[in-house]
């Protein structure tokens, strides 16, 4: 085939034989699956795309992750008790645990070394980060306790700076 001719027009069809025979039935099938494929992205709300793209701005390098190990909202207990205002969360990672309780328009929490790292320095600064960019910070006392004022909804996480390292929790939805 003479593909290397630089003067070939864009509409030149190297793939279609001169003895081209349309296949009406297959054409309809191909059109149908192509139509579905092109419709799928159109069904996604535009703001989902914006949010998905924006998530990348939260990319961090070499930050230790504190994984969610307990969420009272997930076990349904709070709802059954009718105590829907209080929510307790626990995170663990990098030798640390972080426990927080969200109630009465404030967040109370404690940093601690995990079972494997009992002597760990668990004091420092805890920052509450909202995905929209707002942050609030508190410094722990010498036993790792801290309190953050205010209430929030949406996607949030905690960042912990202790002994020169920064850890972040998984994102959670409040």
């Amino acid at each position, binding site marked *: 085939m003479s593909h290397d001719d630089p003067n070939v027009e*864009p509409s030149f069809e190297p793939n279609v034989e001169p003895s081209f025979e*349309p296949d009406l039935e*297959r054409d309809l099938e191909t*059109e149908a699956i192509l139509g579905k494929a*092109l419709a799928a992205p159109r069904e996604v*709300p535009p703001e*989902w795309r914006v*949010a998905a793209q924006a998530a990348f701005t939260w990319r961090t390098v070499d930050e230790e992750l504190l994984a969610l190990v307990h969420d009272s909202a997930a076990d349904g207990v709070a709802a059954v008790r009718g105590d829907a205002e209080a929510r307790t969360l626990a995170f663990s990672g990098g030798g640390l645990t972080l426990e927080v309780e969200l109630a009465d328009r404030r967040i109370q929490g404690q940093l601690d070394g995990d079972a494997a790292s009992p002597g760990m320095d668990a004091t420092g600064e805890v920052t509450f980060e909202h995905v929209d960019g707002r942050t609030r910070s508190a410094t722990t006392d010498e036993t790792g306790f801290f309190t953050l004022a205010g209430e929030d909804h949406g*996607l949030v996480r905690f960042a912990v700076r202790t002994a020169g390292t920064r850890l972040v929790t998984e994102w959670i*939805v409040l």
Partner: protein
Amino acid sequence: MYHRLVTVLCLVVEPNSTRALVAVLPTRRPPMDQPVAGPSVAGLVAAAREGDTEAWDQLVDRFLPLVHSVVSRVRLSAADAADVNQTVWLRLVEHLGSLRQPEALPGWLATTARREALRAATTSGRVVSVEPGAHLLEGVDDVDFDDLLVDQERDQAMRDALAELPADRRRLLELLVSEPPTPYDEISSILGMPIGSIGPTRARALAQLRKTRAFRAWHEATAGPDQDGGDRRVP
């Protein structure tokens, strides 16, 4: 080959030069309006790990329809569903560096989307149930879930196949399969093409689409190889 090249190069270059590299490579593609299918998923993940925003945006474009279809299977308010979507992508950002098999990303995203959607359904406070999530699992059983991944693969293959066509053919097919379908006289004026040419050009464009690399790869993977792209009823 091109995909592998991107993957390998991204591993060895400095983080800051990745974007430039990825931006430059497409110009080495086959001539004119005939782009090969975009970088592989593994290549995009590798580039995104190095901070390449464009690679991330391509991952989003590829897999957003999948995440959307998984989340849509769970009954959630629009706001909760949007939160789930955001959570899924933030999870991916967190785990970009630790994904063992980047090519398994579709499965990872679908699983994460389903888990987060069910979690949202049980924690939103709207659902109070002794067995949280029990009735919500309707419509997200394993069979459906596998079907979603198969559909997503087919849809992506079709979009990749379309991207392999010359721009004028691509545009014609887009107009023909639009919803609602574009009338021939409108297509004629949009593309500057005589109405009488639309039918024959459509047939040739569809035949060409079936001969693209992306279409053949998908077809061989689903129907087994045969000579002409196969005549098994295309699902």
